[in-house]
């Protein structure tokens, strides 16, 4: 059926329920499998990584499917998707897929088209020089950065997503096209601590963070917000009901109790908190999702705040590289970043990465006690001597 070009399309404003189709759900996946996938569904015997970004899966029947994985910006235009379609039509029988980390995968069942496909992908560059379809993202390297909307589309961000991800991905590019690390390193990014995506469970995570309490729009808050919802939105009970001098309902915020999460603004537009100097980036590390060897882990805050230095975030990149390089040098084969940090002890993590340890990294929320060191098992580093000196324990 042809797409409509009428302004209102097939929708008739006067009869809005006429011909309305609902609850169709998604298209059925089987329609979009290339023939080799259909024929070998559930019959796969093993796989191999032929080179970074290129995999072969071999079926019990002997059939093979070759996959070329390419990086992508996630934010993409119809121009780019049409170019993906051109490639899929040319080399892959018109099929293509996307991964759970927003890479693009082109599949083919023969080696000849694999070589042509790879050459074609690497030949395509934007006029300004960046690769359109860099090949990589497999094995023990750093693949695409799961990220969020940032200033492109969201109202609660404390930083921008697409720009930070581009800046960091450029710097980590050798790890995207290589498999030189002890294990895969998953990097993710969220522009506020709603953490849409994977920040709480990634090897390295970048998080937009505020550092100033909300500004209360007393004039409008009772007109625009359900005040009890704004009060209930606070994890630390910093918000309470109040009246203005002229008797309007409003809220008061105990600034010393607020930790700038922004959840009250999510619920109430009269409580904005974004701020050029206040907002910035927090780095977390050591999370994972898989159950391989160790259990899934949350990522832990290792850098409390860095400035939003648009467009390339040099301070963020510097600290991310410190973490990746210390991990690459120190970890055993198969050891995820969090496994390494726990084995050597977090005190050694800070020593080896050179990241400063500040009071912001010590948990003080509810179950914080479980994260403190209730043992005499620790390793001596310069940080320990600093405490000893401050306590008068040594000269």
């Amino acid at each position, binding site marked *: 059926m*042809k*797409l409509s070009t009428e302004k209102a*399309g*097939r929708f008739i404003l006067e009869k*809005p*329920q006429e011909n309305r189709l609902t609850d*169709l*759900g*998604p298209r059925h996946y*089987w*329609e*979009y499998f290339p023939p080799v996938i*259909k024929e070998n569904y*559930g019959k796969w015997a*093993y*796989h191999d*990584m032929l080179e*970074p970004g290129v995999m072969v899966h071999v079926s019990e029947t002997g059939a093979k499917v070759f996959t070329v994985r390419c990086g992508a*910006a996630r*934010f*993409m*235009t119809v121009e*780019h*998707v049409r170019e993906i379609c051109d490639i899929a*039509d040319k080399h892959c029988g*018109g*099929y*293509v*897929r996307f991964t759970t980390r*927003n890479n693009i995968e082109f*599949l083919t069942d023969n080696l000849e088209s694999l070589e042509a496909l790879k050459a074609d992908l690497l030949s395509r560059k*934007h006029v*300004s020089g*960046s*690769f*359109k379809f*860099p090949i990589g993202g497999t094995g*023990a390297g750093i693949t695409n950065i799961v990220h969020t909307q*940032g200033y492109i*589309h*969201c109202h609660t961000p404390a930083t921008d997503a697409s720009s930070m991800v581009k800046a960091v*991905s450029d710097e980590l590019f050798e790890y995207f096209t290589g*498999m030189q690390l002890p294990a895969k390193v998953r990097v993710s990014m969220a522009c506020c601590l709603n953490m*849409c*995506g994977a920040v709480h469970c990634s090897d390295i995570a970048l998080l937009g963070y505020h550092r100033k309490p909300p500004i209360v729009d007393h004039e409008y808050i009772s007109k625009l917000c359900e005040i009890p*919802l704004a009060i*209930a939105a606070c*994890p630390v009970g910093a918000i309470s009901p109040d009246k203005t001098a002229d008797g309007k309902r409003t809220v008061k915020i105990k600034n010393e109790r607020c930790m700038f999460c922004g959840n009250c*603004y999510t619920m109430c537009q009269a409580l*904005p908190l*974004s701020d*050029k100097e206040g907002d910035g980036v927090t780095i977390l590390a050591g999370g994972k999702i898989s*159950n391989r*060897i160790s259990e*899934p882990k949350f990522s832990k805050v290792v850098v409390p705040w860095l400035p*939003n230095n648009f*467009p*390339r975030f040099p301070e963020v990149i510097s600290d991310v590289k410190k973490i990746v390089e210390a991990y690459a040098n120190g970890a055993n*084969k198969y050891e995820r970043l969090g496994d390494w940090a726990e084995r050597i002890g977090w005190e050694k993590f800070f020593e080896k990465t050179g990241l400063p340890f500040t009071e912001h990294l010590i948990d003080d929320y*509810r179950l914080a006690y479980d994260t403190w060191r209730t043992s005499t098992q620790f390793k001596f580093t310069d940080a320990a001597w600093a405490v000893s000196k401050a306590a008068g324990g040594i000269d």
Partner: protein
Amino acid sequence: MLVAFEPKRPVKEINYAESRIYTDAELNNYTEEELKNFKVKHEIPMLEELEKGPWPSFVADAKRNALHRKKLADGRLLLDKEGSEDLLGLLEQSFEEGETHWKHGGIVGVMGYGGGVIGRYTDMAEKYPSIAHFHTMRVNQPASKFYDTNFLRTICDLWSYRGSGLMNLHGSTGDLVLLGTVTEQLEPIFFELTHVMDTDIGGSGSNLRTPSCCIGKARCEFACVDTQELSYELTNHYQDELHRPAFPYKFKFKFDGCPNGCVASIARSDLSFIGTWRDDIRIDQEAVKAYIAGEIKPNAGAHGGRDWGKFDIQKEVIGLCPTGCMAMEDGKLVIDNANCTRCMHCINTMPRALKPGTDTGISLLCGAKAPILDGAQMATLLVPFMKAEPPYDNIKELIEKIWEWWMDEGKNRERIGELIQRVGLPKFIEVLELPPAPQMVKAPRSNPYIFWKEEDVIGGWDRDINDYRKRHKR
């Protein structure tokens, strides 16, 4: 064509040759040279900095879209031509000022549904008029995100014509995200999506969000269950819960084929379905020997970028097994399967020698969420093993028990994980009529603040102080 799985309704074919709006000439209406010389209407020096470097530049891509739209004849787009340019201008201004320029919230949608569209308005509408409305539509993706070019090209034409031409492939939850259109185009777009593309929008709001799954049996030898089929079946079965918010808060399903967690269900879904097995790991001893002899690369070659020395099965597999249940005996690898926790390490490391068992099902875990409000949670184990076979009635019954309880007991904007924390896991499993099991905990409690039910204590709680005083003087 081998058809292993039947869709719920007859498949409507999309043929781009029939559906298309734009001619080839219109789609290729600019040259590389023009693109090189193209300047968007706003000054964007910081964004131009992001055109450099090897990683695909979203700025370079957005500029293509801007030039393409600018060069289309009048009347070949329903939205203002300058949307991409205004978005770049707005983004540059946000960089300069270190603040977003999107107004708070926005409530828009399509009739019959309570979710699926995220309304958005800029607070700089006078300076950037073509993105004054900039709403997002979430389109429910096919399971594990396989597409053909008929589908993608058709949605591109639809979205060029009635939207900004900007997209996310894909949103974190899984949807194909159409980024930026005006309110009056929402219904027309929805009509085209449903009537021409036979596809629906996804979820948003306090409802079942769009489920998603790993690649599963389509291209993975580890998949213990049909993740695509589970995802498709449950998405269709719960269309009402997805489109019409009826819950205290959002609720997500994700389906992982094995404990490797390629769709991260354990961290990113309220109900996490993770494939597993309950019989023995299958061992091909000849292949084990080939790994030891160095004929097959460990971990399918995932560490090929560095010299880690010769493969050492003792050090790399047996010694890293979290339960120590593996050994080499008489040149053969043996696994004490009763003590295996199915972490996947040995299978991941020697995929040609080791395979999951054949008696497969899912582990069901519940309650993952991001930090707001009470802290981040991973999903906690609820059911160690369930068979997962069509029509999945056992799974649906359990889902509905969970929902029924949460819909009654959950507070406004309380995720299921927080409700379980508030009332306790013992209460939750009682509601689900599940017996307690040591598998549900990492360790038993260490504090002795134990609740008992009155009926479990002889004599009950109704006691008379005078009786007590007969035995104990004041």
